[in-house]
């Protein structure tokens, strides 16, 4: 080794250098603006172009929106007010259409004196999903979540409370059968039985039972027909029930797609691919045109119910893919550990695999829900009055004939606020999951 420099290089620091402020050009607003907006010629051009775009859009939009007129009965009156205040050439929004039809956009033709019902339903709905979405809410609250669908149905449609109760009893019946049959008959048979017995009950007993109970203790709310529901309320109903109902179906499909059993696997794959290969709008037309062909003669139910069925099938295919991702993300060791402890397929799914897979899938499910919620606007094509459908109806009325932007902007804004916050929530969840799982 060469030591030629050894002596010359030896160095020991005696006083440590104190931390210093960066040079002025390297800090503060100047640096930030320079680096973020004017660092290269290309950047300068981009900045100028962006400023121009922003200015153009805002200079048109802001005065129009801010100077808008909130108080008028019709477009004609709106224009009169405008002429008075700003002169005839001014371009200002006529938000009066929103303030006048606000209730309609929210509830459709739901009887105004009953508005408290959907509002209460919405609050209950929020309370019911809280335990699902936020782990910090006590687990006991999940019982309320389970009961919520029946309560919500009753609140929205009215009728006798005993109907939903009788239906819910069917599920309870299934659970009871499952619990007592499983030890005696084995899991597979118990599952089949737990499906069959409630079905039998629903087709035979539940109707008369509800009737009888209602005769004894009438608990009735005024009936509201599906046709009267519209606006954002309709979008919520379809979106939420689509997701809620498709969840179990989607899980079953995902399990089917993961299964080694050839027939079950292929059937799931075909179902999923067919559903996803065809646009939702075609499925909606199928719901409105064809579903009646496939059902026994004489069955004839609500268009809204048919739409919900179709939307459920549709989103179940998407949910299945999301859940499949969750299942695939679980390490194989979890399956093996469950096997090694002697848990059978159903138990290991229920106790070990699904709780974890579903948790991982929640962001994906939320994203599916956002997509579905946006897609509810398509029901306008089969004659349901979603917000866009209502906007058409409003525009067709003589008072508001000729108004567009205000309605579209308002509806778009509502959708944006809702979808954007859901999207943020799902991002937040994804980040949290990544932190927890590492």
């Amino acid at each position, binding site marked *: 080794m060469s030591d030629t420099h050894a002596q010359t290089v030896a160095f020991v620091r005696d006083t440590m250098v104190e931390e210093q402020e960066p040079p002025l050009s390297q800090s503060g607003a100047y640096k930030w603006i320079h680096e973020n907006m004017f660092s290269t010629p290309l950047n300068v051009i981009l900045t100028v172009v962006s400023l121009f775009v922003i200015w153009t859009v805002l200079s048109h939009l802001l005065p129009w929106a801010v100077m808008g007129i909130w108080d008028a009965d019709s477009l004609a009156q709106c224009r009169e007010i405008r002429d008075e205040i700003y002169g005839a050439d001014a371009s200002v929004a006529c938000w009066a259409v929103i303030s006048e039809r606000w209730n309609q956009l929210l509830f459709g033709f739901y009887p105004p004196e009953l508005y408290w019902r959907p509002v209460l339903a919405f609050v209950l709905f929020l309370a019911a999903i809280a335990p699902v979405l936020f782990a910090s809410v006590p687990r006991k609250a999940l019982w309320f979540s389970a009961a919520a669908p029946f309560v919500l149905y009753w609140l929205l449609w009215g009728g006798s409370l005993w109907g939903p109760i009788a239906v819910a009893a069917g599920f309870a019946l299934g659970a009871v059968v499952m619990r007592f049959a499983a030890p005696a008959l084995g899991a597979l048979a118990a599952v089949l039985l737990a499906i069959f017995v409630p079905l039998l009950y629903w087709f035979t007993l539940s109707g008369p039972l509800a009737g009888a109970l209602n005769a004894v203790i009438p608990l009735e709310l005024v009936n509201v027909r599906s046709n009267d529901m519209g606006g954002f309320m309709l979008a919520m109903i379809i979106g939420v029930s689509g997701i809620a109902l498709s969840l179990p179906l989607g899980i079953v499909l995902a399990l089917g797609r993961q299964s080694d059993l050839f027939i079950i696997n292929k059937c799931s794959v075909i179902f999923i691919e067919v559903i996803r290969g065809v646009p939702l709008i075609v499925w909606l037309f199928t719901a409105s045109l*064809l579903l009646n062909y496939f059902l026994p003669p004489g069955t004839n139910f609500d268009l809204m119910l048919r739409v919900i069925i179709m939307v459920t099938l549709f989103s179940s295919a998407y949910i299945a893919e999301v859940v499949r991702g969750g299942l695939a993300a679980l390490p194989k060791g979890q399956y093996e550990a469950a096997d090694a402890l002697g848990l059978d397929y159903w138990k290991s799914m229920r106790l070990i695999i699904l709780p974890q897979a579903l948790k991982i899938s929640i962001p994906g499910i939320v994203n599916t829900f956002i997509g579905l919620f946006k897609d509810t*606007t398509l029901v306008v094509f089969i004659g349901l009055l979603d917000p866009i459908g209502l906007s058409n109806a409003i525009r067709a009325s003589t008072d508001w004939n000729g108004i567009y932007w205000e309605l579209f902007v308002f509806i778009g804004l509502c959708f944006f606020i809702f979808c954007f916050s859901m999207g943020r929530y799902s991002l937040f969840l994804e980040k949290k999951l990544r932190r927890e799982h590492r």
Partner: protein
Amino acid sequence: MTTMTDPPGQGFRLSQLIYDTRYRSLTIQVVAMIVLMLLFSWLVSNTIHNLQTLGKDFDFGFLTQPSGYDINQRLIEYDSQSTHGRAAIVGILNTLLVAVLGCALATVLGVIAGVLRLSNNWLVSRLMAVYVEGFRNVPLLLWIVLIFALMTESTPAPRAFRGDTPDASMLFDAVAITNRGVYVPAIHFASPFFTNGALNWLVVLVVLGASIFAIQRLRHWATAKQEATGDRPTTWYLILGILILPTGLLMLLMGAFLDMPSLQGFNFGGGIHLRNSLIALWLALSLYTGAFIAEIVRGGILAVNKGQTEAAYALGIRPSTTMNLVILPQALRVIIPPLISQFLNLTKNSSLAIAVGYMDVRSTLGGITINQTGRELEGMLLLGLFYLVLSLLISGVMNVYNASVKLKER
């Protein structure tokens, strides 16, 4: 070596159907099969019964009947005397047209927005975030309707171009933007080789194809030269020349001239008429899908480890070359699969054409034809099949691609 045998002295017992792993899966599948068959036959028998009560049959004969309606935008010959089948094909072509145009524009928008969103220019990246979030969080239908309304409400009617002092005038005297669509000049041939216009275009296309082939050869040559000498010859002006000159010359030879749109009667005549319905649908689909693609592109670029760039820089490779040789090839693997499923979504979403009266396959076969013939079962079946086949084709392409670029791992 012994082979597996059943436990001795035990024949087949019925309980084995459930408790024996070998038979159990068979049992489950047979049960599932039976349930499925039952369900299926129940649906079919319902359908048959319902059709009978209605006095309808199941027959595709209507496809060969004259349709009786006109379609405004048609890529192939069609009039009201043509068959429903042909109307369906016109619709299919229209669907494909808007899908292809949409995918192309969406990709361009998406790539630009995705890259700009990563820009270190704060203003630009914020602006792109606004674009992306704005389009992603508002229903597509609303965008289609909005853009369509914007186009009909804020552009002049053809009659505004009329008179000595018209309210509106054409751009460069060549392009007319009206509330019925945009009229752009068309190219026609004065001394054509063939009387049939389409054949002339075919000739031009063949020459263009040949030029592109020549460009490929040129690039091969450049690569070979680079491999041999290390220097890559500059070729862009050659490429430009090969691309433009032969085709241009041929078109001149054929007497190409621009057919300018001009006011004729009620409308503009001449030129090519891009209908509002097409443009609105096209723009809305592209902007909407572009927002999703932007996120995909951004994710793809971010997915390439920062270390890759650093390694390339440390080797002395220039940023632009690094982009081409290191970042893009890796990012594309991440980008292309979700990109293709966005293409699929766009294609499916083109069925929203109904909102603007664009005559896609849903409007012809799945709309007017079903309505005029009452063949909803057959019509919807064909329509569903068309979309299904299209998606399977596209996802087939995606699978082939995925398999071909899969990174080799241990």
